[in-house]
Protein backbone atom coordinates (compact mmCIF):
# COMPACT_ATOMS: atom_id res chain seq x y z
CA UNK A 1 0.00 0.00 0.00
CA UNK A 2 1.28 3.47 -0.91
CA UNK A 3 2.47 5.42 2.07
CA UNK A 4 0.58 8.64 2.70
CA UNK A 5 2.51 11.88 2.36
CA UNK A 6 1.87 14.95 4.51
CA UNK A 7 0.15 16.54 1.52
CA UNK A 8 -2.21 13.55 1.07
CA UNK A 9 -3.08 13.67 4.74
CA UNK A 10 -3.67 17.42 4.85
CA UNK A 11 -5.78 17.28 1.70
CA UNK A 12 -7.93 14.51 3.13
CA UNK A 13 -8.14 16.24 6.50
CA UNK A 14 -9.43 19.45 4.92
CA UNK A 15 -11.92 17.45 2.85
CA UNK A 16 -13.04 15.81 6.08
CA UNK A 17 -13.44 19.26 7.63
CA UNK A 18 -15.64 20.13 4.66
CA UNK A 19 -17.75 17.06 5.50
CA UNK A 20 -16.69 15.34 2.28
CA UNK A 21 -14.30 12.61 3.43
CA UNK A 22 -13.96 10.23 6.34
CA UNK A 23 -11.06 11.26 8.57
CA UNK A 24 -10.42 7.86 10.15
CA UNK A 25 -6.79 6.68 9.85
CA UNK A 26 -5.54 10.24 9.34
CA UNK A 27 -5.35 11.01 13.03
CA UNK A 28 -2.42 8.68 13.60
CA UNK A 29 -0.29 10.43 10.98
CA UNK A 30 -1.18 13.90 12.20
CA UNK A 31 -0.56 13.00 15.84
CA UNK A 32 3.00 12.05 14.96
CA UNK A 33 3.78 14.80 12.44
CA UNK A 34 4.56 18.27 13.76
CA UNK A 35 4.67 19.68 10.24
CA UNK A 36 1.13 18.48 9.50
CA UNK A 37 -0.15 19.76 12.84
CA UNK A 38 1.26 23.21 12.13
CA UNK A 39 -0.03 23.41 8.59
CA UNK A 40 -3.41 21.98 9.48
CA UNK A 41 -3.85 24.63 12.14
CA UNK A 42 -3.04 27.36 9.59
CA UNK A 43 -5.44 25.89 7.04
CA UNK A 44 -8.19 25.70 9.64
CA UNK A 45 -7.61 29.37 10.49
CA UNK A 46 -7.95 30.18 6.79
CA UNK A 47 -11.12 28.07 6.67
CA UNK A 48 -12.57 30.10 9.51
CA UNK A 49 -11.52 33.36 7.84
CA UNK A 50 -13.16 32.43 4.53
CA UNK A 51 -16.30 31.23 6.28
CA UNK A 52 -16.56 34.69 7.82
CA UNK A 53 -16.98 36.35 4.46
CA UNK A 54 -19.57 36.44 1.71
CA UNK A 55 -19.86 37.93 -1.75
CA UNK A 56 -20.58 41.65 -1.50
CA UNK A 57 -23.89 42.61 -3.05
CA UNK A 58 -24.64 45.73 -5.00
CA UNK A 59 -27.69 47.21 -6.62
CA UNK A 60 -27.74 45.88 -10.09
CA UNK A 61 -30.15 46.03 -12.97
CA UNK A 62 -28.68 44.55 -16.11
CA UNK A 63 -32.01 44.03 -17.85
CA UNK A 64 -32.11 47.36 -19.79
CA UNK A 65 -28.62 46.69 -21.20
CA UNK A 66 -29.40 43.03 -21.90
CA UNK A 67 -32.66 43.94 -23.65
CA UNK A 68 -30.84 46.53 -25.75
CA UNK A 69 -28.14 43.99 -26.59
CA UNK A 70 -30.68 41.38 -27.64
CA UNK A 71 -32.41 43.91 -29.90
CA UNK A 72 -29.06 45.00 -31.35
CA UNK A 73 -27.96 41.44 -32.07
CA UNK A 74 -31.34 40.61 -33.60
CA UNK A 75 -31.03 43.61 -35.91
CA UNK A 76 -27.45 42.65 -36.72
CA UNK A 77 -28.24 39.04 -37.33
CA UNK A 78 -29.62 39.26 -40.88
CA UNK A 79 -27.97 42.35 -42.34
CA UNK A 80 -24.37 41.15 -42.73
CA UNK A 81 -25.62 37.88 -44.15
CA UNK A 82 -27.89 39.68 -46.61
CA UNK A 83 -24.98 41.90 -47.63
CA UNK A 84 -22.72 38.89 -48.06
CA UNK A 85 -25.36 37.14 -50.11
CA UNK A 86 -25.70 40.16 -52.36
CA UNK A 87 -21.94 40.50 -52.81
CA UNK A 88 -21.61 36.84 -53.61
CA UNK A 89 -24.41 37.01 -56.19
CA UNK A 90 -22.69 40.00 -57.85
CA UNK A 91 -19.41 38.10 -57.74
CA UNK A 92 -21.00 35.07 -59.37
CA UNK A 93 -22.64 37.17 -62.09
CA UNK A 94 -19.30 38.82 -62.89
CA UNK A 95 -17.69 35.42 -62.99
CA UNK A 96 -20.29 34.20 -65.47
CA UNK A 97 -19.58 36.98 -67.94
CA UNK A 98 -18.18 35.41 -71.11
CA UNK A 99 -14.53 35.85 -72.07
CA UNK A 100 -13.59 37.53 -68.82
CA UNK A 101 -10.46 36.58 -66.96
CA UNK A 102 -10.53 38.54 -63.73
CA UNK A 103 -7.50 36.84 -62.23
CA UNK A 104 -6.67 34.98 -59.04
CA UNK A 105 -7.52 37.89 -56.75
CA UNK A 106 -11.07 37.89 -58.02
CA UNK A 107 -11.42 34.22 -57.11
CA UNK A 108 -10.34 34.96 -53.56
CA UNK A 109 -12.99 37.66 -53.04
CA UNK A 110 -15.62 35.33 -51.44
CA UNK A 111 -13.08 34.05 -48.93
CA UNK A 112 -12.01 37.57 -48.05
CA UNK A 113 -15.63 38.65 -47.55
CA UNK A 114 -16.34 35.81 -45.12
CA UNK A 115 -13.07 36.39 -43.24
CA UNK A 116 -13.91 40.10 -42.88
CA UNK A 117 -17.31 39.25 -41.47
CA UNK A 118 -15.77 37.05 -38.81
CA UNK A 119 -13.33 39.83 -37.92
CA UNK A 120 -16.20 42.33 -37.77
CA UNK A 121 -18.23 40.17 -35.40
CA UNK A 122 -15.03 39.34 -33.47
CA UNK A 123 -15.98 35.69 -32.97
CA UNK A 124 -17.52 32.79 -34.79
CA UNK A 125 -21.12 34.00 -35.12
CA UNK A 126 -22.44 30.50 -35.72
CA UNK A 127 -21.27 28.97 -32.47
CA UNK A 128 -22.34 29.47 -28.89
CA UNK A 129 -20.92 26.82 -26.62
CA UNK A 130 -23.63 25.59 -24.27
CA UNK A 131 -21.89 22.33 -23.46
CA UNK A 132 -19.89 21.80 -20.31
CA UNK A 133 -16.66 22.51 -22.11
CA UNK A 134 -14.24 25.18 -21.05
CA UNK A 135 -12.91 27.09 -24.02
CA UNK A 136 -9.36 28.40 -23.89
Amino acid at each position, binding site marked *: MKELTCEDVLMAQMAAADGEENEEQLGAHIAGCANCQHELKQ*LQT*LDHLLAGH*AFSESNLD*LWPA*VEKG*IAKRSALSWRPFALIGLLLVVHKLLEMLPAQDLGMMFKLVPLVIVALLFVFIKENPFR*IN*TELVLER
Partner: protein
Amino acid sequence: MDDAEAIKRCQQGEREAFRHLVERYQKRAVAHARAILFSRSDAEDAVQESFIDAFKAIGTFDTSRTFYEWFYVLLRNRCYKMTARRRPTESLDEALLLTAQPGMSAETTLGLEKALHSLTCEEREIVCLKYFDGLSYDELATHLQIPRGTVMSRLFNARRRLQRKLSGLREQEV
Protein backbone atom coordinates in the same frame (compact mmCIF):
# COMPACT_ATOMS: atom_id res chain seq x y z
CA MET B 1 -43.47 32.68 -13.20
CA ASP B 2 -40.98 29.84 -12.64
CA ASP B 3 -37.83 29.24 -14.69
CA ALA B 4 -39.33 26.45 -16.80
CA GLU B 5 -42.23 28.63 -17.89
CA ALA B 6 -39.96 31.61 -18.54
CA ILE B 7 -37.69 29.43 -20.70
CA LYS B 8 -40.67 28.04 -22.61
CA ARG B 9 -41.94 31.56 -23.32
CA CYS B 10 -38.46 32.70 -24.36
CA GLN B 11 -38.28 29.77 -26.77
CA GLN B 12 -41.51 31.05 -28.28
CA GLY B 13 -39.79 34.39 -28.83
CA GLU B 14 -41.23 36.30 -25.87
CA ARG B 15 -38.35 38.57 -24.95
CA GLU B 16 -40.01 39.97 -21.84
CA ALA B 17 -40.06 36.50 -20.23
CA PHE B 18 -36.25 36.56 -20.28
CA ARG B 19 -36.36 39.48 -17.88
CA HIS B 20 -37.44 37.07 -15.14
CA LEU B 21 -34.27 35.01 -15.63
CA VAL B 22 -31.97 38.03 -15.82
CA GLU B 23 -33.42 39.60 -12.68
CA ARG B 24 -33.33 36.32 -10.79
CA TYR B 25 -29.73 35.37 -11.57
CA GLN B 26 -27.85 38.60 -12.32
CA LYS B 27 -26.41 39.15 -8.82
CA ARG B 28 -25.22 35.57 -8.48
CA ALA B 29 -23.75 35.67 -11.99
CA VAL B 30 -21.89 38.94 -11.37
CA ALA B 31 -20.45 37.56 -8.13
CA HIS B 32 -19.21 34.47 -9.97
CA ALA B 33 -17.79 36.52 -12.84
CA ARG B 34 -16.01 38.79 -10.35
CA ALA B 35 -14.50 35.76 -8.68
CA ILE B 36 -12.84 34.90 -12.00
CA LEU B 37 -12.16 38.38 -13.38
CA PHE B 38 -11.70 40.34 -10.13
CA SER B 39 -13.12 43.44 -11.76
CA ARG B 40 -16.65 44.71 -11.29
CA SER B 41 -16.98 46.40 -14.68
CA ASP B 42 -15.53 43.43 -16.60
CA ALA B 43 -17.79 41.10 -14.63
CA GLU B 44 -20.89 43.10 -15.47
CA ASP B 45 -19.89 43.19 -19.15
CA ALA B 46 -19.32 39.43 -19.14
CA VAL B 47 -22.67 38.72 -17.49
CA GLN B 48 -24.50 41.06 -19.83
CA GLU B 49 -22.99 39.46 -22.92
CA SER B 50 -23.59 35.97 -21.54
CA PHE B 51 -27.27 36.72 -20.98
CA ILE B 52 -27.51 37.91 -24.58
CA ASP B 53 -25.79 34.68 -25.70
CA ALA B 54 -28.20 32.71 -23.53
CA PHE B 55 -31.25 34.33 -25.10
CA LYS B 56 -29.85 33.66 -28.55
CA ALA B 57 -29.20 30.01 -27.69
CA ILE B 58 -32.28 29.39 -25.55
CA GLY B 59 -33.68 27.09 -28.25
CA THR B 60 -30.91 24.61 -27.40
CA PHE B 61 -31.57 24.71 -23.64
CA ASP B 62 -31.19 21.26 -22.12
CA THR B 63 -34.17 20.68 -19.81
CA SER B 64 -32.24 18.08 -17.80
CA ARG B 65 -30.20 20.92 -16.32
CA THR B 66 -31.23 23.97 -14.33
CA PHE B 67 -31.10 27.31 -16.10
CA TYR B 68 -28.19 28.53 -14.00
CA GLU B 69 -26.09 25.40 -14.54
CA TRP B 70 -26.55 25.84 -18.28
CA PHE B 71 -25.95 29.59 -18.13
CA TYR B 72 -22.84 29.18 -15.97
CA VAL B 73 -21.08 27.41 -18.85
CA LEU B 74 -21.71 30.38 -21.14
CA LEU B 75 -20.59 32.81 -18.44
CA ARG B 76 -17.47 30.87 -17.54
CA ASN B 77 -16.37 30.56 -21.14
CA ARG B 78 -16.83 34.29 -21.68
CA CYS B 79 -14.93 35.15 -18.48
CA TYR B 80 -11.98 32.96 -19.42
CA LYS B 81 -11.93 34.47 -22.91
CA MET B 82 -11.79 37.90 -21.30
CA THR B 83 -8.94 36.92 -19.00
CA ALA B 84 -7.01 35.65 -22.02
CA ARG B 85 -7.50 38.96 -23.83
CA ARG B 86 -6.80 41.18 -20.83
CA ARG B 87 -3.38 42.76 -20.69
CA PRO B 88 -1.42 41.83 -17.57
CA THR B 89 -0.74 45.47 -16.70
CA GLU B 90 -4.41 46.40 -16.75
CA SER B 91 -5.45 47.73 -13.37
CA LEU B 92 -8.15 45.97 -11.44
CA ASP B 93 -10.87 47.92 -9.76
CA GLU B 94 -10.81 48.42 -6.04
CA ALA B 95 -14.45 47.68 -5.33
CA LEU B 96 -14.51 44.87 -2.82
CA LEU B 97 -15.52 41.41 -3.91
CA LEU B 98 -16.23 40.37 -0.34
CA THR B 99 -18.15 41.57 2.61
CA ALA B 100 -17.19 40.52 6.12
CA GLN B 101 -19.49 38.94 8.66
CA PRO B 102 -19.61 40.70 12.06
CA GLY B 103 -16.40 40.21 13.99
CA MET B 104 -14.07 40.49 10.97
CA SER B 105 -12.07 43.68 10.55
CA ALA B 106 -11.88 45.68 7.33
CA GLU B 107 -8.10 45.08 7.24
CA THR B 108 -8.65 41.34 7.39
CA THR B 109 -11.09 41.50 4.49
CA LEU B 110 -8.71 43.66 2.48
CA GLY B 111 -5.86 41.24 3.15
CA LEU B 112 -8.02 38.33 2.08
CA GLU B 113 -8.96 40.17 -1.12
CA LYS B 114 -5.30 40.83 -1.90
CA ALA B 115 -4.45 37.20 -1.28
CA LEU B 116 -7.34 36.02 -3.44
CA HIS B 117 -6.14 38.33 -6.20
CA SER B 118 -2.78 36.57 -6.18
CA LEU B 119 -4.37 33.20 -7.00
CA THR B 120 -4.95 31.97 -10.53
CA CYS B 121 -8.46 32.43 -11.95
CA GLU B 122 -9.16 28.71 -11.55
CA GLU B 123 -8.02 28.64 -7.93
CA ARG B 124 -9.98 31.77 -7.07
CA GLU B 125 -13.06 30.40 -8.78
CA ILE B 126 -13.03 27.14 -6.83
CA VAL B 127 -12.43 28.88 -3.50
CA CYS B 128 -15.26 31.34 -4.12
CA LEU B 129 -17.70 28.67 -5.25
CA LYS B 130 -16.85 26.53 -2.23
CA TYR B 131 -16.95 29.18 0.46
CA PHE B 132 -19.21 31.93 -0.77
CA ASP B 133 -21.66 29.83 -2.76
CA GLY B 134 -21.51 26.78 -0.48
CA LEU B 135 -21.14 24.19 -3.25
CA SER B 136 -20.27 20.62 -2.27
CA TYR B 137 -17.40 18.74 -3.93
CA ASP B 138 -19.85 16.92 -6.20
CA GLU B 139 -21.48 20.19 -7.23
CA LEU B 140 -18.05 21.72 -7.83
CA ALA B 141 -17.14 18.75 -10.00
CA THR B 142 -20.30 19.30 -12.08
CA HIS B 143 -19.89 23.07 -12.30
CA LEU B 144 -16.22 22.95 -13.22
CA GLN B 145 -16.39 19.76 -15.29
CA ILE B 146 -13.55 18.11 -13.43
CA PRO B 147 -13.33 14.84 -11.45
CA ARG B 148 -14.03 14.93 -7.72
CA GLY B 149 -10.39 14.09 -6.98
CA THR B 150 -9.30 17.13 -8.96
CA VAL B 151 -11.75 19.26 -6.98
CA MET B 152 -10.09 18.03 -3.81
CA SER B 153 -6.54 18.68 -4.97
CA ARG B 154 -7.30 22.01 -6.68
CA LEU B 155 -9.11 23.27 -3.61
CA PHE B 156 -6.32 22.09 -1.34
CA ASN B 157 -3.63 23.75 -3.44
CA ALA B 158 -5.68 26.96 -3.64
CA ARG B 159 -6.16 27.02 0.12
CA ARG B 160 -2.49 26.35 0.70
CA ARG B 161 -1.40 29.15 -1.66
CA LEU B 162 -3.95 31.48 -0.16
CA GLN B 163 -2.77 30.72 3.34
CA ARG B 164 0.86 31.27 2.39
CA LYS B 165 0.03 34.54 0.67
CA LEU B 166 -1.87 35.72 3.74
CA SER B 167 1.08 34.81 5.97
CA GLY B 168 3.36 36.76 3.64
CA LEU B 169 1.09 39.79 3.79
CA ARG B 170 0.99 39.63 7.61
CA GLU B 171 4.79 39.47 7.74
CA GLN B 172 5.04 42.51 5.46
CA GLU B 173 2.76 44.44 7.82
CA VAL B 174 4.85 43.62 10.92
